[in-house]
C-alpha cells in the first residue's frame, strides 16, 4: 500500500489522534515508525493505523519538536537529562496501549521522547548505551564495555511543568519489598532470550516488565547500507519459523514499489510455500505448547511430523530453517520435480496426525485445566494491544491479513478464517490447530493447478526503487508481519521498518497475566507463540 500521510498541527496532534480512533474507528495501531527524515525535516514518526471493521488503513506523519530539557537552573524534577536538546512528541500510548512498547522502541533508536509516557526506558539496547543509533548522523563506535549494565529501577516520565519547561520525573518500577524473579533471558520456556522481569506474590504474578534486545541485531539499520537484494538475506533470520512469510512481506513491498508484474506460477508457488511454512510453524507451536506444559511425548509427535514438512520444503528450497526462496521478481528456483507428489502425500499423512495431537494433548483434561482461562484477554483489549494473528483470532478478532488485504492467491481459494471466542490460551491453541487444517485445504486446492510460466521475472542487475513510502503486510505465522519502506530512489532503502509479530504480543503479557500463576505465565508464553529473534530484529 502506497502511503499518503495525513499531517496534523503539533498542538492538535493528540486530539486528532483521539478523533481518528473514536470517530473514524481506527482502533488498531499497526506500528509506529521512527524515522530520521534528514537534516531539513528532522526526526519524526509515522503512525500506521487500521480500522478493525472495514480494514481501511491510514497513516500519519508527525515531525518531532525539539526543546532543551530542564529550566536551566536547579531542576524540580530529577534533572537527569537536563541541558540536552530533546526531540519530543505527545504520547499516544493512552489511546492505543500497544504504543507503550512501540514508543519505547522509537525512543531507544531515535531519542524521541514521548511526553506523558510513564516509562521512557530503553527497550532493546543496554541502558548505558550512548547515543541513538538509528539517527543518520550517528557515528559507529567500536568501543563497548563488558561491565555490568546497571539497570534503572524506575521509568522516566517527561512532562511540561507549569512554566512550560520540559521536566523529568521518576516512576518506581518496584516496591522495595517485592519478590522479583527473572524469567529469562536463559530460561527453557521463553523459547529464546526473552527476559520477563516478574513481580511475584507467592505463586501469583503481580506485574511483568519485558526486557528485550538480547538478540537485537539492528537489521533495520543494516538494511540502510545494503542493496535491495542484499536486504532479503536477513529476513529469514527473524522468526526462524516464518522465513517464507517474512521474505514475502519484504519482496512484496519492493515489488509493489517497483510495480513488478508477477506470473501466476510465482503467485501459486508463493501461496503454497507460505502455507507449508505455516504448517511448519504451527506444528512446532503445538509441540512447544505441549512441551512447556510438560507433555514431552505430545511434543515429539509434532516434531516428528514437522520433519516431513521440512523435507518437502527442503527438496525445493534447499533450506530447512533459512529457506532463502523468494527474491525480488519471483523465486530462487523452480519447484522440485517431485514437489507436487510430495505435497499430496504430505497432506494425506498430516490430516490424521493432527487428530493425534489432540488425542494425546489437546483434548486432555489436564491441558484443558491448564489452558482454559489462562492469560485471558478480551476482544477490545486485543485490538488495543494489537494482539494480531492466532492469538487475536482466539478472542474473535477477524484480523487475518490474508482475508483483509488479500495477496497472491488467497482471495481465489476457498478457506475460512479461524476465529474463536474463548479469549484464553486454550482458544489460541485451538485456532492454531484449526489453521493447520485450513492450510492443508489451501495447499490441496492449489497443488494440482500450478500453471506453467516463469518462476522468475528478470530484473535489472541493479535494483532501484522509485521515491515514496509503502507498507505491505502479510499474515505471518504469529500475527501480521509488515514492512514499511521509505525509498529516496537509491539502490538501498532510506528507511525500512518491520512490524514484528511478537512485539505487541510481549506487550500484552502484563495485562493478560496479572493475578495469574507463574505456571500460567509459561503456558501463556507458549500459547501466544512468541519467537524472540522476530521481536528483537
Amino acid at each position: 500500500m502506497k502511503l499518503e500521510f495525513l499531517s496534523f498541527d503539533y498542538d492538535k496532534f493528540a486530539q486528532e489522534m483521539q478523533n481518528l480512533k473514536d470517530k473514524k474507528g481506527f482502533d488498531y495501531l499497526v506500528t509506529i515508525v521512527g524515522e530520521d527524515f534528514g537534516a531539513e525535516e528532522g526526526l519524526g514518526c509515522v503512525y500506521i493505523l487500521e480500522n478493525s471493521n472495514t480494514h481501511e488503513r491510514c497513516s500519519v506523519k508527525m515531525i518531532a519538536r525539539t526543546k532543551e530539557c530542564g529550566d536551566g537552573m536547579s531542576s524540580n524534577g530529577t534533572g537527569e537529562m537536563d541541558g540536552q536538546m530533546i526531540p519530543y512528541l505527545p504520547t499516544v500510548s493512552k489511546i492505543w496501549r500497544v504504543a507503550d512498547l512501540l514508543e519505547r522502541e522509537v525512543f531507544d533508536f531515535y531519542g524521541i521522547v514521548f511526553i506523558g509516557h510513564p516509562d521512557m526506558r530503553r527497550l532493546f539496547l543496554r541502558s548505558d548505551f550512548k547515543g541513538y543509533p538509528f539517527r543518520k548522523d550517528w557515528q559507529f563506535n567500536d568501543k563497548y564495555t563488558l561491565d555490568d549494565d546497571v539497570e534503572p529501577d524506575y521509568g522516566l516520565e517527561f512532562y511540561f511543568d507549569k512554566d512550560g519547561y520540559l521536566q523529568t520525573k521518576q516512576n518506581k518500577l518496584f516496591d522495595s519489598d517485592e519478590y522479583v524473579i527473572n524469567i529469562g533471558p536463559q530460561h527453557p520456556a521463553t523459547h529464546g532470550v526473552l527476559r520477563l522481569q516478574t513481580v511475584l506474590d507467592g505463586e501469583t504474578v503481580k506485574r511483568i516488565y519485558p526486557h528485550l534486545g538480547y538478540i537485537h541485531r539492528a537489521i533495520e539499520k543494516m538494511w540502510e547500507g545494503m542493496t535491495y537484494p542484499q536486504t532479503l538475506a536477513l529476513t529469514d533470520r527473524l522468526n526462524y519459523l516464518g522465513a517464507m512469510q517474512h521474505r514475502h512481506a519484504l519482496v512484496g513491498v519492493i515489488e509493489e514499489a517497483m510495480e513488478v508484474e508477477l506470473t501466476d506460477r510465482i503467485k501459486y508457488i508463493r501461496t503454497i510455500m507460505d502455507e507449508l511454512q505455516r504448517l511448519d510453524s504451527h506444528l512446532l507451536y503445538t509441540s512447544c505448547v505441549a512441551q512447556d506444559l510438560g507433555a514431552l511425548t505430545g511434543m515429539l509427535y509434532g516434531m516428528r511430523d514437522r520433519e516431513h514438512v521440512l523435507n518437502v520444503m527442503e527438496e525445493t528450497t534447499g533450506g530447512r530453517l533459512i529457506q532463502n526462496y523468494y527474491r525480488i521478481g519471483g523465486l530462487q528456483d523452480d519447484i522440485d520435480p517431485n514437489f507436487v507428489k510430495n505435497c499430496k502425500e504430505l497432506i494425506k499423512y498430516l490430516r490424521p496426525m493432527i487428530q493425534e495431537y489432540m488425542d494425546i494433548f489437546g483434548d486432555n483434561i489436564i491441558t484443558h485445566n491448564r489452558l482454559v482461562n489462562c492469560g485471558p484477554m478480551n476482544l477490545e483489549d486485543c485490538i488495543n494491544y494489537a494482539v494480531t494473528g492466532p492469538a487475536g483470532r482466539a478472542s474473535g478478532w477477524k484480523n487475518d491479513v490474508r482475508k483483509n488485504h488479500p495477496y497472491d492467491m488467497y482471495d481465489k481459494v476457498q478457506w475460512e478464517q479461524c476465529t474463536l471466542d474463548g479469549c484464553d490460551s486454550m482458544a489460541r491453541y485451538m485456532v492454531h490447530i484449526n489453521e493447520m487444517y485450513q492450510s492443508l485445504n489451501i495447499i490441496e486446492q492449489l497443488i494440482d493447478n500450478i500453471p506453467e510460466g516463469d518462476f522468475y521475472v528478470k530484473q535489472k542487475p541493479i535494483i532501484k526503487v522509485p521515491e515514496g513510502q509503502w507498507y505491505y503486510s502479510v499474515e505471518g505465522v504469529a500475527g501480521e508481519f509488515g514492512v514499511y519502506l521509505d525509498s529516496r530512489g537509491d539502490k538501498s532503502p532510506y528507511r525500512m521498518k518491520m512490524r514484528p509479530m511478537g512485539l505487541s504480543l510481549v506487550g500484552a503479557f502484563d495485562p493478560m497475566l496479572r493475578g495469574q500463576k507463574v505456571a500460567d505465565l509459561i503456558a501463556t508464553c507458549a500459547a501466544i507463540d512468541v519467537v524472540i529473534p522476530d521481536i528483537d530484529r
Partner: protein
Amino acid sequence: MEDNKSYFGEIGQGLKTLAIGMKTSWKEYFKDFFTNKSTEQYPENRKTTLHVAKRHRGRLVFKRNEDGSYKCTACTLCEKACPNGTIKITAHMAEDPETGKKKKVLDDYAYDLGDCMFCQLCTNACNFDAIEFTNDFENAVFDRSKLVLHLNQEVYAGGSLPNLLEGGAEWQVGKFNTKTK
C-alpha cells in the same frame, strides 16, 4: 466449564480424555514396535541411508568444464553482491597470447565458508554460471583458517560421501529410515 458440570460428570469426562491420551501413546509404543521410530543414526548411516536434498546449500564450488577449466572471469560481481564480504577475488591483467587482447586473469578466489550465510546472492549475480552451491555438508574443520577455501585452486571432486551430490538415499514422505545399513 466447571460450574455447569456435575462433580461426577466432570470426573468421568476427565478420565475418558485421560484414557484416550493413554491409548494414543500406547498405540505409538506398540505399533510396529521396532520400526516406528524417527531417529536417524547419523553418522553411522552417512554412507548408506542418509538423504540430503540436492538443493541443500552446503558450500560454494566452481563449476568446471570437462577439461577441468573454470568459467570465472574475475568480474567480481559476486564479491560485490555478497552482504558479508565472504568472497575475496584477486586478479591481474594479462595479455591473451592468441588474440592479443588484455584480459583479467584470476589469481585467487578466496571463499570464507565460516562467514558465508548461504544467501545465494553470489550465484544469482554471476553472469557466467561459474559458481554453484552443492549439498556437500560435512565441512567441519578444527582450525578456522581452514575454512577459507580457494575455489580456483582446489579440484572439487564430489562430496565427502558417495552419491551425495545426487541426494544420497531415497526418501519418502511419512517414513523414516532409522537403519544404518
